């Protein structure tokens, strides 16, 4: 029995250090030798969760629940894994069961809140988060989750307060920093959002979602810039047929538009922190983004040239073609950018490279 306890302590330490594969190896041996140990199965489930093996995590958690039906931890573990598998209704059921078994334990309420949030039930999530806050007012993860629930309900101010409270309790809580960035993004404050994402990436460089969020914001900004550029270009294309202008002022107008967009982008970039400016440069140099920009600018330039250099009597036939070219260029450029951003989106992270608080004992 002492040996089992020692092996489990060893496995728990490995899990705390984020060494999921080593822990899995050890626990596989332990559960083979002691299949009746509920704690061993729970730790095994946690190891699977940490290594993104969700189906195995559910199976291990279910084994633990069968062995010890009054224990709440297996249900929390199962809920967490089911959430990752996309079985939100089942996840919520498992979380509710854990809360029924241990209503005085704040982690069970956090688990319910997480599952309800994933199941798009923000009202239930808010109630569970409030109960968790009542039980553990000084737990940063509780405020972090409350902030996420508030953000999902559109309460930006409430979300900000909760995340700031989480940071006050744990100044290194990178998840809260990331959430503050997402709140800024919802307020269309790109530079502010990037600053928060940078803080999060600085606090936890191993969590790649934060730097990906920065990339997403940059791509969105470039996409928006292309949109505005094309929109103004579309308006300017109507100038020659309506105002009967010469070529020179028309071409000058196109040049000024391009320069104006460039200046606006440069100002936005200059407002960013130094690290983000470096990232912007790198993003602009990637092939997809460079292609998107080239397609947008090239398409608009072709359309302008067509309108500027055809004889005035051919303008009625040329103008629709120019408009189609401009819109086509914008659509191609946006599709190009979307394929870059498709791999990720400005998402939230737990803040640590470990299963969330609801998975821990």
């Amino acid at each position, binding site marked *: 029995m002492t040996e089992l306890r020692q092996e489990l*302590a*060893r496995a728990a330490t490995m899990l*705390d250090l984020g060494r999921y594969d080593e822990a899995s190896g050890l626990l596989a041996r332990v559960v083979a030798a002691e299949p009746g140990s509920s704690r061993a199965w729970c730790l095994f489930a946690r190891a699977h969760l940490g290594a993104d093996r969700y189906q195995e995590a559910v199976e291990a958690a279910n084994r633990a629940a069968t062995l010890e039906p009054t224990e709440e931890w297996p249900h929390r573990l199962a809920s967490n894994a089911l959430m990752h598998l996309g079985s939100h209704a089942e996840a919520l059921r498992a979380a509710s069961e854990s809360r029924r078994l241990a209503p005085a334990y704040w982690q069970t309420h956090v688990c319910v809140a997480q599952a309800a949030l994933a199941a798009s039930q923000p009202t239930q999530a808010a109630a569970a988060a409030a109960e968790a806050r009542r039980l553990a007012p000084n737990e940063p993860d509780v405020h972090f989750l409350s902030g996420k629930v508030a953000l999902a309900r559109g309460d930006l101010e409430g979300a900000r307060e909760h995340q700031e409270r989480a940071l006050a309790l744990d100044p290194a809580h990178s998840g809260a920093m990331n959430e503050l960035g997402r709140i800024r993004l919802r307020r269309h404050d790109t530079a502010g959002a990037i600053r928060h994402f940078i803080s999060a*990436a*600085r606090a936890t460089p191993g969590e*790649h979602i934060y730097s990906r969020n920065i990339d997403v914001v940059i791509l969105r900004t470039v996409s928006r810039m292309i949109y505005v550029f094309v929109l103004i270009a579309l308006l300017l294309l109507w100038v020659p047929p309506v105002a009967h202008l010469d070529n020179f002022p028309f071409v000058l107008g196109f040049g000024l538009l391009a320069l104006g967009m460039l200046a606006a982008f440069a100002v936005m970039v200059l407002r960013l922190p130094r690290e983000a400016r470096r990232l912007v440069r*790198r993003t602009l140099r990637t092939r997809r983004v460079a292609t998107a920009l080239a397609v947008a600018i090239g398409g608009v330039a072709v359309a302008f040239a067509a309108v500027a250099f055809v004889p005035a009597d051919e303008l009625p036939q040329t103008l629709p073609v120019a408009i189609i070219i401009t819109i086509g260029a914008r659509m191609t450029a946006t599709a190009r950018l979307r394929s870059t951003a498709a791999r990720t989106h400005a998402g939230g992270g737990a803040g640590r490279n470990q299963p969330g608080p609801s998975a821990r004992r």
Partner: protein
Amino acid sequence: MEPEPAVLESLRNAVAAMPDDVPLRLHLAELLLRAGQRDEAVRHLGAVLQRDPGNAQALGMLTAPAPAAGQHPPAPAASVSPERSAPSADTPASSPAVPDAPAASPSDGDDDDPVPAADDLAGEYDWSQAENELSDVLPAMFVDDAGSTSAGIEEARAYDAERAGITLADVAGLTEVKQRLEAAFLAPMRNPELRKLYGKSLRGGLLLYGPPGCGKTFVARAVAGEIGARFITVSFADLIDMFVGRSERNIHELFQVARRNAPCVLFLDEVDAIGQKRSQLRNTPMRSAVNQLLLELDDVANDNTGVFVLAATNHPWDVDSALRRPGRFDRTLLVLPPDGPAREAVFRYHLRERPVGGIDLAKLSKITDGYSGADIAHICESAAERALLDSVRRGEPRLIGQADLEASVAEVKPSLGTWFDTARNVALFANEGGAYDDLVAYLRKRRLI
């Protein structure tokens, strides 16, 4: 001297009649090698290894290199005649035919001497002479070899070797790492008078960091060898054991052992496990372990001479900043993926005991830029597996060739991507105080940022 075709034919018939007779096959294989019929010899050696996987003689014949094309080594002075080494009718089938003592052996003339056991015979067998004898029948292991493989294998000890007493000379490539080690650690240590003159203290340890599988542990061993110190290594498993017991006492005892063994290098592998940021640790014994480690490091600096603490980590950014203050692990050294010469050496090392032929190490080194030492080991393993499966399919063994290795390189992707993603984040966002300037320089050089 080449064997008579008739002798070969009769031996072939004998082997066909007794396919499980290992000594007979070995003898036939040796004669075939001598006759230049390499393919058939390799097939027989493969059959021997199927029946007796550890047969040293068969392995020796398979792996013994031949000189580069066009070279004809002189005939061996003391070759074993077929008649002498052929198994006699009353020799037990299990007794080896070829590894008898060479003709010049003093025991040859004395028939009354007891026949040594097979193991004894193997111990007396002159392998280098046998290699010379067979050197013209197998292709050179590596295309750039000028008749010798030993130099490369010496260099190859840079990776994965687990023997004590190595020095930096045994570390192939990694010139920059060696230079920085010399400047930051070894030069002051080797010159106590100059150190005293300039008031340079030896306080503090050295933290080696870099991607996994790139030789940090080996470099640490080499440092110990370089300063002639004992080497105590504490692995991740040891650290876990410490946490399970009374961690503070365990850490204290570890340092006590190091002090008793001074001069001694105490090497803490994967120090992020023990020295993880305390803010990330929820487990109380682990938090107190970090505190104890800090205490011991300060003791080393104040009270002990001759204890040099080296540590290695893949994630220095997860190491508690308190551990990296002056007097503790205040010097860091980036150990990067192996450079060209180091990659060649790693290939040599992992292929040294495998039947290979015609390997172009320079080309392999070129196409594995960005691979870790562990990746290269995996490539060699994968190439061996490919050759083995092919041998099974064809029913005859063959050597591992360049094509196998190149196909494996195409299959095995470098494993360092995730590490470099994190390193990029560190370089961009967390290089406070220039702690990771060398990493930033490397990433810039490789256009990763």
